[in-house]
């Protein structure tokens, strides 16, 4: 009988110890030891479905792990942090992800490899000055993506923009780039050349309309503010044209009427 009691006591002590609480005294102290067991643990991994609209701190990107996030739509809507760094979510939609963060200055390490929709992702981020190269291999909608980023000077471009598309049907543009850089009047020549160099070569794909190569190549037109186009040389624009991307000026006054 005593042996059973002794063994039970040892088992309970071990169970408490396994819950990260030390047991110093006899059996009468075990109740208090059990009360010290923390029935929660802290993690920096956000559960899927988390949104962080209205956030104000750059620490978000150093303190939290977004790897479970699969939907960035409205993720940081109306937030006011200044710098994005190594944001590791894997989302199809980036629509309105950084919508109207007027304090945002820099974006680095954005994991957009799975992004398909990026409508108004940075709409109205009027203080944003630099974004490193982002992956556009799966983008089908980049409409108004940088609309109103009037301070954006340094941009690494969108890698493989135009590679994915046609999900709307073969008679539609491969990728929606309408209003993409409206009001981005500060873009440097180097940034636009980066954009051209990263465009996908549409001569590698068919638009499904023509009868036979070379007549059925896809093509797209990408628009920039006139003041930006004036900074480019004919050689710069030739980089885009060589990939069946046409370049045009736009002073469109499209405004988001969604909100």
């Amino acid at each position, binding site marked *: 009988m005593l042996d059973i009691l002794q063994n039970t006591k040892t088992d309970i002590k071990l*169970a408490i110890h396994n819950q990260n609480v030390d047991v110093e005294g006899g059996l009468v102290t075990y109740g208090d030891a*059990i009360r010290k067991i923390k*029935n*929660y643990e802290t993690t920096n991994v956000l559960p899927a479905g*988390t949104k962080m609209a209205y956030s104000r701190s750059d620490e978000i990107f150093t303190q*939290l792990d977004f790897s479970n996030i699969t939907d960035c739509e409205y993720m940081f809507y109306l937030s006011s942090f200044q710098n994005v760094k190594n944001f590791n979510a894997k989302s199809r939609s980036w629509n309105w992800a950084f919508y109207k963060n007027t304090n945002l200055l820099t974006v680095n390490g954005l994991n957009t490899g799975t992004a398909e929709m990026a409508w108004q992702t940075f709409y109205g981020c009027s203080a944003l000055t630099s974004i490193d190269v982002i992956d556009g291999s799966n983008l089908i909608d980049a409409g108004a993506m940088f609309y109103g980023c009037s301070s954006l000077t340094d941009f690494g471009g969108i890698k493989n923009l135009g590679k994915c598309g046609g999900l709307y049907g073969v008679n539609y543009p491969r990728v929606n780039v309408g209003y993409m850089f409206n009001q981005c009047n500060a873009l440097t020549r180097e940034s636009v050349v980066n954009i051209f160099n990263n465009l996908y070569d549409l001569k590698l794909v068919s638009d499904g309309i023509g009868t036979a190569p070379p007549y059925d190549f896809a093509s797209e037109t990408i628009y920039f503010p006139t003041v930006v186009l004036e900074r480019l040389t004919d050689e710069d624009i030739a980089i885009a044209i060589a990939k069946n991307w046409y370049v045009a000026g736009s002073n469109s006054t499209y405004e988001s009427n*969604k909100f």
Partner: protein
Amino acid sequence: MTTADRLNDLITAKEDMKSAIEEKGVEVTGGLTSYADAIDSIKKIIAVKAFNGCSFGYSNTTWNSTGTQHFQTLPIMYVDLEAVTDATDMFNFSDIKELYLYNTFNVTNMDSMFVTCNDLTAIKGDFNTSNVTNMTNTFYNCPLLSISLIDCGSVDTLKGSWTLAGISGLKDLGKVSNLDIDSGVFAYITDLTSIKNIIDTVYDRATAGYSSITLYVDYDVYNSLSNTYINKAAAKGWIIQSFI
């Protein structure tokens, strides 16, 4: 110590352990030999680390205007606020149903902390408000939320308005002599019992010699309040009036 004493100690220790295990949410049905397994099964809730300046949530009242509803929603969230002193705008989650908050004892600012959590029904975990000085709009537009008695002994600023389904009381509200409070802050709480609970638990400013404070309450609540309660409030330095 006699054998009987030892036996009594053993029984006491056993009952204490059983209570402690059950306090952790585990039902104990067997004898002492089952306690180790019961302790092993104490659940570990995983709480997300929060910090100053981070905000969880979104408000879909505007965003639904897209006509599409493809947001994922979080019905329940677990958050550790040990590193948080300023919880301004921390939860703005129109779809959240329950929040489990841990280590809120360092929070001093709860300005708009649960603003527009209009589906939130409960705050669970350890919601310690003893160091909070600012409760402006803390429960703005939380019409389904019922909360237990909260400590308001450090609150010096209480502006805006709260909307709650129910509250068990505001312990020591008004203990700060120069409390900056909007008189209509509770005018949208339409539950009579909650207003009675508030009157029962606010600080006795009259006895402390502090200036009196006027509070407007919902018109129907005011008409349902007995003179006993209105007089009870007045005796503590709180003037209750009807909000038109």
